């Protein structure tokens, strides 16, 4: 029964949507403190290559590899974030784009370690690994009426979904807290923020590093979902694509990244004809959004409106009791 419902192709697309949501969040969280970073593709590459090399060459467990990727991306975030404090707006964007290119060129040129432009294949697959572990304790996907490959796609999707839900909760809560207010204050007026006792340096580096870690996580997951990575996956096209998720969906709110990544991942999948022109479409979208709705499709006002409606309905609810 379940077996007929589960289509590996759809699950694969859904898994990419989830990874792209994490990437969108990485832009959102850096922008929250007013920093426009185009380094996501670079941080993603750091995460992806770290875990790919560790797991393929040293048979490190996946979880350890992924965590190492996230940590290393975070360390790079701090290293890039601190000197970037002097840079604003477009200058920061260019510098971080430069970082991404440095990472990519480094990977291409250190063939002995990274296999250069050819890329790394045979990276342990997340779903396969989980299934192997489960089979050891006597689990058989047949119990669920699933073929092995259906099960691996399904379990990857579920795992990613859980990760995304946890991250969305994490960043929504952070937004409505002392830390989130410090980010917004810095975003709106750095000098006023400092005058209110906010350590601007600390919070800017924190938000930049969180963004780097998210991109690193997305990269690491990407490596283990696809099982093949190459420098071509982390070019500046990717950086622009990631930026588009957030800018189109809405860069002020967590929901914006979710909407943007979902919509823009589904679009080329559903309309095959468009697929070829996707970068052109991203370009047009960016220009149109900047001109007419710079805050993105979903903005803070919309979220407030939802909240107020919800609040009112709850009020009605209690009155009726």
């Amino acid at each position, binding site marked *: 029964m379940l077996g007929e419902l589960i289509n590996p192709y759809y699950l694969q697309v859904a898994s990419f949507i989830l990874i792209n949501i994490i990437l969108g969040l990485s832009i959102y969280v850096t922008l929250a403190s007013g920093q426009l970073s185009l380094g996501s593709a670079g941080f993603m590459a750091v995460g992806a290559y770290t875990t790919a090399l560790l797991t393929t060459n040293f048979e490190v467990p996946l979880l350890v590899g992924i965590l190492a990727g996230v940590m290393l991306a975070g360390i790079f975030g701090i290293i890039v974030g601190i000197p970037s404090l002097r840079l604003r707006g477009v200058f920061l964007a260019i510098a971080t784009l430069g970082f991404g290119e440095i990472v990519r060129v480094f990977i291409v040129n250190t063939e002995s370690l990274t296999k250069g432009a050819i890329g790394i294949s045979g990276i342990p697959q997340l779903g396969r690994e989980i299934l192997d572990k489960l089979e050891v304790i006597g689990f058989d996907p047949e119990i669920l009426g699933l073929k092995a490959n259906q099960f691996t796609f399904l379990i990857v999707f579920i795992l990613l979904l859980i990760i995304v839900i946890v991250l969305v*909760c*994490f960043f929504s*809560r*952070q937004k409505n*807290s*002392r*830390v*989130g*207010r*410090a980010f*917004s*204050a810095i975003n*709106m*007026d750095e*000098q*006023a*923020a*400092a*005058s*209110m*006792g*906010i*350590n*601007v340096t600390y919070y800017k580096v*924190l938000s930049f590093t969180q963004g780097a870690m998210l991109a690193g996580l997305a990269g690491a997951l990407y490596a283990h979902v696809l099982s093949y990575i190459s420098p071509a996956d982390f070019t500046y096209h990717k950086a622009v694509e990631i930026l588009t998720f957030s800018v189109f969906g809405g860069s002020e709110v967590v929901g914006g990244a979710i909407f943007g990544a979902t919509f823009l991942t589904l679009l080329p999948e559903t309309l095959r004809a468009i697929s070829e022109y996707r970068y052109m479409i991203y370009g047009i979208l960016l220009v149109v959004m900047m001109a007419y709705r710079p805050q993105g499709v979903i903005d*803070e006002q919309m979220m407030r409106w939802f909240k107020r409606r919800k609040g009112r309905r709850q009020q009605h609810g209690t009155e009726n009791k």
Partner: protein
Amino acid sequence: MVLKINNISKQFGGITALSNVSFSITEGEILGLIGPNGAGKTTMFNMITSVLAPTSGDISFYDEQISGLKSHQITTKGICRTFQNIRLFPEMTVIENVMTGSHCRTKSGVWKSVFRTKSQKQEEKEIYDKAKQLLETVNLLKERETLGKNLAYGQQRRLEIARALASEPKLLLLDEPAAGMNEQETVELHRLITKIRDMGITILLIEHDMPLVMKTCDRIVVLNFGKKIAEGEPKAIQSNPEVIKAYLGTEGDDDIA
């Protein structure tokens, strides 16, 4: 002694914005800092709050050197300011603006915020209640869910004061709080400033509205072209020939009498 300004000078390229200015403020006092446009008043605030570093001289707060500290550290020590050209957080609501002012008196970091620990919830509730109370003080409680940018001019000035108060300052620096206010609002502002003083907060007030200055301040320091030209009680300042000359020199846009 709350604040001691010791021989502060500030040069901007060729311009001397402040030259060898010294004065001090005692606890519980409202000290006026006046002078014609470009006299160096705002620059003095920028020196005190470390927005800019002085060319020479030093500043101490309760007998402790504060020159060289970062802006946020100075706020944490207990000095908070408002800005001549209002600098609210425009996209935050009124109450969020005030809650942000409590930043340096609260502690919750990322993990506490995300896990909503007991102490974090408690802290949020405390600063929310305090913010409401402060908004009541500046008469903005009804507007608490309005966005900062949507307030009228005079309301924005009052919100800036409430936000500064949320940082629990011992010394409050007000840069032209009456600018852009009508007569009624100015009267209320006078009441507000004395009320803040009665809360035990020392105040340094920059203001061009002379009747307000004369009525509000215990003592006044007068700057002209970066130099201190007079210091004393309002009556004495009003009749000081140097001061009158300085103000007449600016074609009388500030009427000292």
